């Protein structure tokens, strides 16, 4: 299934990046570009909505980690939202569920970012 990306600014410092479909070695450069675009335009906090992602490989995981690192360098954070059980399993086997803050909804993640 083809990757879909939708981005939305929430205030000055928060951006929501909603993904759908498959994030793999083919499609992940587009995710990277979307994340960098938001970070470069001043968003310290990225809310990555994974609720419609069906497949996530190491390419996608690496890009999420790179985005997190970049965001933290600027005093921000990357939040992951509502991954499907299969994606949550991948995050858990890699230990990345301990690295990212995973929240249940976009609104919850935006509120979390605005409190920081």
């Amino acid at each position, binding site marked *: 299934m083809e990757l879909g990306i939708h981005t939305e600014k929430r205030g000055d410092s928060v951006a929501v990046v909603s993904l759908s479909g498959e994030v793999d*070695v083919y499609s992940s450069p587009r995710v990277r570009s979307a994340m960098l675009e938001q970070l470069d335009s001043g968003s310290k906090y990225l809310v990555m909505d994974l609720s419609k992602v069906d497949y996530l490989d*190491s*390419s996608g995981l*690496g890009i999420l*980690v*790179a985005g997190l*690192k970049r965001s933290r360098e600027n005093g921000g954070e990357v939040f992951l939202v509502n991954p499907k059980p299969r994606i949550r399993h991948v995050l858990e086997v*890699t230990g990345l569920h301990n690295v990212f803050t995973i929240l249940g909804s976009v609104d919850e993640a935006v509120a979390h970012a605005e409190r920081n």
Partner: protein
Amino acid sequence: MTPNDAPVMELRVPALAEYVSVVRLAVLGLCGRLPLSYNEVEDLRLAVGEACASSVQRAAKADCPSCRITVTGELDEGCIVLTIRDDVPLPPETGPAGSLDIDPDFDDESFRISLMQLLVDEVGIGEGADGGQVVRLVKKCEQGRDAAG
């Protein structure tokens, strides 16, 4: 019934990122015939995708658009064995490796190998007879696990 020593699947695709999903789809079809759970099938599909991604990354670095990935699937005593071989020349100084150029501090090839090891029962990585990389993934099926105790 296919004899154990004959591949039940053989697929050759260009070592290009857009073909990795084709391999994953073929593996999904093959696994549908085996006593594997949904998560086991998805683990195997992800592991195969990682092996192919490694080939794709090295082919891109070697600027080799004509390079190919060959995936074979075999059933062996309660296991499914998937072999992913490519004809991408291995850099002599580094051995099997690739890079996503995500971040200089992020060792994506090590991460990829670790992920494969977490997903399947056995992972073997070596150099093929034609100079490329060979990755062998073994996943025990339900019957194989029962036999092993």
